[in-house]
Each structure stands twice: as C-alpha cells, then as structure tokens.
C-alpha cells in the first residue's frame, strides 16, 4: 500500500496523527445512531450506524467535549513519550524544539477543553438576551445558549487549531509555516466569535478576523517579496542566501519588515496589538486563554525562525535590532499602562499579555544587538521559550478562574471578582498566585522565566560597562544600550505590580455582590488547583530543572539548525 508517509515518519508525528484521527472521530461519533440499510428485495437490515435516531450515549451533549479531552490527553502523553526526531518530506522537521512547542500548544488546548466542560458554547438559533428582557427571559435564554447540542463544531475547530499550531512548529519552509499559521488563525477567529451568549462575541470575532487577515495579507506580501529576492522559501536556503549577501538588499529588508507586521500581530506587539484586547474580552475565557498562550507562542516561533535563524548575521548587529528594541519597550510599557486603567479582568489580562510579549521581544532585540556570545544568546532564547511554556500554566490558570466565573455569566467586570475569597478561598488563592506569578514574584515560575530573561540580556551586555569606572555615573554612561532593555523590564515589572495586586485586593477585601457558593465545577476546579501547584513547583525545585533542561535541549536543536 502506498501511504503518503511511511511508518518511520509516522512515528515522528504521533501526536498530530492522534489529533487527525480524533478529528475524524469527533465528526463521526456524535452522528452514530440506529440507522440501518435494508438490502433491496430482502428483509435483512444491515446496521450502518451513521444517522437515524442517535443512541442515548452519542446524543449526550457532553460527548464531544469528552472525546476531545481524550484526544488531547493522548496527544500530550505521546508527545511527552516521544524521543525520535527527523525530517518528513521537504517542509517538516521534527526536532526537540518543535516537539516542545507541540506540547505547549497541546497543553493549552487541553486546558481550554477542560475549561469548556462546564461552560458549553452556544447554540446558534438562540439569541443572546437583550438589555430590556426581563430577568426570567434572559436567564432562560442564557440557559438555552449554554445547554448546547452542537458543540461538536467548537471542538472540531479546537482540534484544527491544535493541528495547525503543532505542524507550524515543525515547518522548515516559509510557505508551510504560513499555511499552518493561517489554519490556526482562521480557526481561532471562529472560536472568538463562538462566544454567543454575549453580544460582544460576534463583534470581537469580526474585528479580530479583519485585522488578522490584513496582517496576514501584509505578511504574505512580504513573503512574496522575499521569494522574489531569493527564489526559495525554505528556511535553510534563505539563511544561506542571507549570510552570503554582504549588504542587506532593500527588497529583502522590506520583505522581512512586512512579515514582522504579520507575526507582530500574532504575538500582540505594539502597535499591532490594538485588536487583541477587544478579541480577548469578547471571546469566552477558555478561548481568550488560548489566544494569550498558544497563539502567542505560535507568533514567537515564527519570529524566532525569521529573526534568529534566517536574518541574524554571524557577527555584528542585525538590521532589525533598533526596531525590535523600540517595539519591545513600547509594547511592554503600553501594555502595562493600559492594563492599569482597564476594569474588565479579561481586558486587563489581555494587556498584561501584551506587556509579556514586550518582555520577550526585548529578549529577541538583545539577541539582535550582536554583542552576545553564543551561550548568552542561547540563554535568552531559553528564557523566551521557557516563558512561553510557563505562561500556559499561570496565564491560562487565570483564564480558567474567569471561565469558572463565566459559568454563572460573570467575569466581565472587576466587580465580578469582588469577594471571591469569601465565596471560594481555594480558587481565589490560586488566582492570587497566578497574579503574583504574572507579576514575577519569586519563587514562582513567572519569576524564574523573567529572571532568566534579564539574566540573558545582562549577560549579553556584560563587559560593555567600563570596568575602570570610578563613579556610578561613569559606569552607567559606559554600558551599551542593550543593558537598558533589562532595566526596562525591571521597571515595567514594578509598574505591573499595581494592577495584578488590585485583583488580589478586590478578591480578598471587597464584599461579594452575590455571596452564594461557587458552582461546583469539579474538573475546572481541579485544573485550577493543578495550575496553581504547577506555578509554584515549576518555579523552584526539580520540576523546574527538568523543564528547563527540556527547553535548553530544544534551543540547542534550534540553534544548531
């Protein structure tokens, strides 16, 4: 039999194959019924199972969720187990780097699936409640929206996102990279609009779609210019061509700049971040969490591929150094300042996610300064990837808490968090932990990643300060500007403390508007607690070591390519 890939190649992509298989399953299983086919002229009925009236089990509205839960769990498990690497065809290569990112994406999707267990997405033919509806009617409408029988669509799209992202991290060809990003992005636009019980959902999805597709169009235009210049879009060929050319061709420079717009939109860098807060606050919390973690990680993979593997000169400063440095500082400051003034927790988390993108971009900019030794560059890359990995834990954790609030149609205003500690101390404590980790309080994992970043940037700038400086001022004026990136991160972290702490403050201090105990959503609650525990033990102890080792391996494989 002539399969498109042979067994040794298939072994490399087991998690992706599981997702593909799951995609088929999730379409088929809810359609299983008692339909049968009568062989003509006989009375023999051959059961065909597809169609007819569905079995009790397959018509269960929770089924798609359970199926995708199983799929992602298996994919995560096999992804963790896998240790063989190699290439598949011309455009995909499985390395430690791509495997790590697949795991990050799948973990985020798994959390999103868990979060939707108790917060089922909408039924299309029910309209969201209007402002002038009586309370009774609006409750009925919301119940109808939440009790959904067609959430198969939702999970199909969720798995498509997983496939797109996972394959994207393996792509070694720009075109493949772009197609995978689009697969994931288009799916995520739909997911944003899937938030049907609120009126802002559709608007947010539309906005996100328009801005996103413009960014993609700009990116693909840049890619076509790059193709004009090199005649080949595989990353290896591009980097060889780039290294050979003595000066930067304007065509190639513009091309890379245009692609930065597309990927900058994905990571939420200023000034391309403007749609992000609307999208996050309009989407349901699990999806907002997905955008803030997996989607951002995807953008950074693309940025790292373009900036570090292709256009980074062997010595000296990369041409994008100043641009990225400025974007980084603007992004982190803008994100933090905007987060300070936002009263919607989702919007606040969106802006905080923008500022986190700024921190990571600062790391990329420091690499571009060309001052660093190989170890220092690897350290910064490790920090970036580690940060992306741990973001899944605590940023998604925060969105999980909001998801829990959304099960009772709350979570859009800061007031909804008021007095959470009285209603549910465990969830509130976890939320506080997530906030502290986002702010970078040691010894939580958020600190470790930020610390590695600062460490890497300082290592890059090390030795630039005059060692014979006698006064403080002398020393400060003699350091390279790249040092100030680390400084900007520190200042911004201090700034961000305010709004993270405010969440803690309203949870513990304010009176709750509604003092009923929280809805008993076991799996969601379990996921929150697991995230909280991971936030601590990935920050300090053996688990952080093994994760860092994994990241360092991934970076090794990334750099050696």
């Amino acid at each position: 039999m002539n399969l498109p890939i042979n067994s040794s190649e298939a072994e490399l992509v087991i998690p992706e194959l599981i997702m593909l298989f799951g995609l088929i399953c999730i379409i088929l299983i809810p359609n299983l019924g008692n339909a049968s086919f009568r062989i003509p002229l006989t009375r023999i009925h051959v059961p065909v199972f597809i169609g007819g009236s569905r079995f009790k089990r397959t018509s269960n509205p929770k089924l798609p969720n359970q199926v995708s839960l199983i799929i992602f769990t298996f994919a995560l498990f096999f992804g963790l187990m896998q240790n063989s690497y190699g290439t598949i065809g011309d455009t995909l290569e499985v390395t430690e780097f791509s495997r790590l990112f697949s795991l990050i994406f799948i973990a985020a999707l798994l959390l999103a699936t868990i979060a939707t267990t108790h917060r089922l997405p909408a039924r299309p033919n029910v309209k969201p409640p209007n402002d002038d509806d009586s309370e009774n009617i609006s409750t009925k409408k919301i119940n109808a929206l939440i009790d959904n029988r067609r959430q198969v669509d939702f999970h199909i799209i969720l798995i498509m996102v997983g496939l797109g992202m996972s394959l994207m991290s393996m792509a070694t060809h720009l075109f493949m990279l772009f197609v995978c990003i689009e697969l994931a992005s288009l799916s995520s636009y739909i997911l944003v609009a899937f938030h049907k019980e609120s009126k802002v959902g559709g608007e947010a999805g539309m906005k996100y779609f328009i801005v996103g597709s413009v960014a993609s169009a700009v990116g693909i235009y840049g890619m076509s210019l790059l193709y004009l210049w090199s005649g080949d879009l595989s990353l290896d060929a591009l980097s060889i061509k780039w290294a050979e050319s003595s000066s930067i061709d304007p065509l190639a420079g513009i091309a890379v700049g245009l692609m930065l717009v597309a990927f900058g939109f994905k990571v939420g860098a200023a000034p391309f971040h403007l749609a992000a807060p609307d999208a996050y606050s309009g989407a349901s919390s699990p999806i907002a969490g997905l955008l803030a973690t997996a989607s951002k990680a995807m953008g950074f993979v693309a940025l790292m591929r373009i900036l570090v593997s292709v256009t980074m000169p062997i010595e000296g400063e990369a041409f994008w150094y100043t641009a990225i440095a400025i974007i980084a500082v603007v992004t982190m400051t803008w994100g933090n300042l905007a987060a300070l003034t936002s009263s919607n927790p989702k919007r606040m988390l969106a802006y905080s996610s923008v500022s986190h993108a700024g921190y990571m971009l600062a790391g990329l900019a420091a690499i571009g300064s060309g001052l660093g030794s190989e170890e220092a560059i690897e350290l910064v890359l490790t920090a970036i990837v580690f940060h992306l990995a741990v973001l899944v834990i605590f940023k998604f954790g925060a969105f999980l808490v909001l998801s829990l609030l959304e099960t009772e149609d709350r979570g859009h205003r800061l007031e909804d968090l008021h007095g959470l500690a009285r209603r549910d101390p465990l969830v509130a404590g976890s939320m506080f932990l997530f906030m502290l980790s986002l702010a970078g309080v040691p010894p939580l994992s958020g600190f470790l990643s930020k610390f590695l970043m600062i460490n890497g940037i300082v290592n890059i700038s090390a030795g630039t300060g005059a060692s014979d400086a006698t006064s403080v001022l002398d020393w400060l004026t003699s350091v390279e500007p790249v040092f100030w990136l680390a400084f900007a991160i520190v200042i911004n972290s201090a700034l961000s403390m305010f709004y993270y702490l405010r969440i803690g403050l309203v949870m513990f201090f304010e009176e709750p508007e509604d003092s009923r105990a929280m809805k008993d959503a076991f799996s969601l609650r379990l996921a929150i607690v697991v995230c909280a525990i991971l936030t601590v033990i990935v920050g300090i102890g053996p688990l952080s070591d093994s994760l860092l080792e994994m990241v360092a391996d991934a970076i090794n494989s990334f750099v050696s390519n």
Partner: protein
Amino acid sequence: MTILTLTPIAVGLLLLILPQLLPGKLALSIRKFSRNVSFGVSMALFAFATYLSFTTFGGIDWLDINMGEYELMNDKPVTLISSIGVSWIVGVDALSLPMVWLTALLIPLSMLVEWDAKEGHIFHPLILVMEGALLGVFVVLDLFVFYVFWEMTLIPMFFLILVWGGEDRKYASMKFFIYTFTASVIMLVGILIMYFHTGDVSGVSGTLTGHHFSLIEMNSEMIQSEGLRHLVWILLLIGFATKMPSVPVHTWLPDAHVQAPTAGSMLLAGVMLKMGAYGFLRVAVSLFPESTVVFTPILIILGMASLVYGALVCMGQTNLKRMVAYSSVSHMGLIFLGIATMQPLGIAGALFMMFAHGIISPLLFAVAGAFKHHYHTLEIGSMRGIAHHSPYLAAHMMLGWMGSLGLPLLAGFVAEVAIMIAFWMSFGWLVILPALTLIITAVYYLTSMQKTIFESNDRHHGILPESLHGEEPRDITWNENTSMFILGILTIAFGIFPFIFFDMMSDWSSEFVSEVLLSYLIEQGVRP
C-alpha cells in the same frame, strides 16, 4: 535550621489548605484545632531554638566562630534550581543566632496575645507561615532563597493587616506592600548585579547561566569596577533602609502599625524591621566594606535624621500605636549610627539594639493592642489614670516605656550606651546630637505616661474615654498578661545580663572589624 524554617511553613500551609479540600466535618475539626496545633508547633520550635542558642555550654561555642564561618550548616548544599545556581544553604553565626531566637520567641507570644482572634483557624496558621519565612531570612545563605523568604514575609503580613486590621486597613496594607515590594525590587537589582559578577571568581560549573547565588562564595573583589560596587551598595541600602525603615522612606510604617492587628504589629516591629538591619549587615556591609566606609556620611545623615525626626514626630502624636511606631523609626536610626561608627563596640551596640528593640517594641505594641482591645481607643489623652482600672496593663505599659527610653538595667540601655560610646570614639563631640535626642525620647514617654497612667482629676476613677460608652473597663486577659509578662521579664533580664547575647555580638563585630574593615582601612592610610 532546615527543620526550623520549613516546618512552620509546611504546617501552616497545610492547616490553611486542608479545610478547603476536605469534606465538611473533617474540615471543621481541623479548623477547631488549628490554633492549638500552630501554637504547639511554634512552642516546639522555640524550645528547639533555645536549645541551639544556649549550647555554648554544650557542643557549640558561639564565640569561637570566625568571620565567614557558620554553624549548623548543611554540608552538602541541596540544589534547588540548578540552571541558575540556586541552592539551599543554611547556617547561623553570631549575627543571625539572636535574631533566630528572637523570632522563635515572639511567634508564640504574639499568637498568645491574639489567642481569641476571629477566624483563628486562618490567623494562627498565617502567623506560623510568617515564622517560617522570617526564620528563613535569617538562616539562609543563598541570596536567591534569601530574597524569596524576604518577599514571603510580605504575604502573611499583608493578609494580617488586610483581614484583621483596623478601619483604614485597605490603604495601610496596600501602602505597606507597595513600599516594601518596590524597595525589595530595587534590592533585587543590586543582588542581580552581584549575581552577574559571580562565577568568574569561583567558576561554578553546571549552571546554565554560569553564575551562582551562594553568599558564602561572594566577596567584594568579584566586582572590579568601584563605581559599580558603590551602585550595588546604594541599591542594597535602599532596599534594606525601607524595611528598617529609615527616614525618607519610613511613611509606610506608622500606617501599617496603626492598622495592623496586635500580633501583626508585634512581629512587624519585633522582627520584620530587624530584617532590614540584618540584611544590611549581612550583605551590604559584609561584602562591600569599602563602600560602607565611603558612604559613612550617608549612614550618619540617615541615622541622625531618623533618630531626630522620629523622636520629634513622636512628641506630637496622640495615637498610642503611631507614637510607638515613630519611636521605632527613631531607634532604627540608632542602628545606622552604630554601624557608621565602624567600631566593634558600635556595631555590637547596633546588633544589641536590634535584639533589645525586638523585645521591647513587641511589648509596647502588645500593650497598645490591649489598650485598644479593652478601652476601644488609642488616643493618649482620652484616658487618664489607667493605673486604677487596669493595674497590670499600667505596669506593663510603664515597663515597656521605660525600656524604650533607655532606663539603666533594662535591655535598651545597654545598646544605647554602647552606641553612644562608640560614636564618641569615632566622631567626638558630635555625640551630643544623638544624646540630646534621647532626652526628647524621655520627654515624650514621660509626658504620655503621666497623662495616661497616673494623672487624674479624681483619684479613684480617672477619666474614661468616650469610646467605652460608660462601661467599666476590664483589666487585660490572662493570655495578654502572660505574654507581656514574659516580654517584661526578658527586658529586665537582658538589661542585667546582656552578655548572654552581647558577647557573641561583640565577638562578631570585632572579628568583622579586624578581618574585613581593618585591612581596607590600613590600605587607605586611616588609623582606626
């Protein structure tokens, strides 16, 4: 030491979290016993710490420890985060031992004072967590873990103020958190600069970053640039001085103290302020003696400003807790002056000041708390003639105030005298300034004492504050009395027998001066 640090944290967290996870009935029984368990654990730790402290007569001779050597150290550091060179190294020397003992002492006492706190099933475990973090700060010799514990002390204290505090608790806890957090972030920058210069010295291998946090293996030569050394020193000073607190950055302290519950105030004044002085001596002064000498004027100005300003503001206070808080600021100024003398006696005096203030100020706050508890007010003038209504309270109050103003034979006196003598030795007649300030201290204590405890129009009844609404005030309860009694006894005991800890402190400081400072000073041509 590991046990001392980790047990309270583990037990405290367990007591906090378990009732959330377990089903109703079991959770209830845990809640019922959690304050007893917390108290028991803290008492056990106190017994352990006492045993350690007084093993001079047994195994360990505390006076025999050289500079840079630690007792009870774990020989093999346990790696916590190998990639950035963090490991678990704990140990004590003469600098940290009195602080460890003090912490272990104050925790059960402060629990006792607030034995009947509302929601005790959260309150007491929180204090237990706090104990672990505080002890951690004093025994850990790895700067990363030090910083972690440093920050960890904030969180229980933040909640103590936020949940059990007074009317303005929200503002106070926020201010407390923001001030100390910002300061410690600045300190973190200093630590990071130090961190980035390690590695070229000891060549630690196996870490991703090529650096390490181990305090033992750091020294001032690792940073070649003198300017950078000064910068680090100043960053550390900002971090530690805010915690102490010294004058320009002290404003969080009165607010926090006034709003905090009694136990919180006791720990805040007794131990948390000492963290600043301890960290300053352990990190900034020990590692960068040259910068300390260069910046001595800054220390003197800060110390003097705190001392004088704190004392002057005290005179104008009508709120009991606020007055005690400002007197703390004033006393912390003396610690800076003691360090600035660069004399063994002065540094030893500063160390003993840390310890004596750690006994006296909790007593004062316990008194203030009891006053608030039974008289429902903290205004000094509103109540006259407590001696009649609450003789025990009045006695403790007097003892505390006397100790705080430095009456001979009480613990505070020893420290003040040591610092003054050293100050005279170093700066001659400048000593008049701090000495005069002590008179101000005496003035504000004596006037408020006269106002509150004794003076009364009617010899038999005194004036009762309006907040009592005509009820007859009670004397303090047994638990408050016990813990104040213990603190009072210790104030007297350490006034008469200061050498219990003073010997090891002066030993530490003379070793510090002879081994660290002297070599540098001789190099500079200064004759000490």
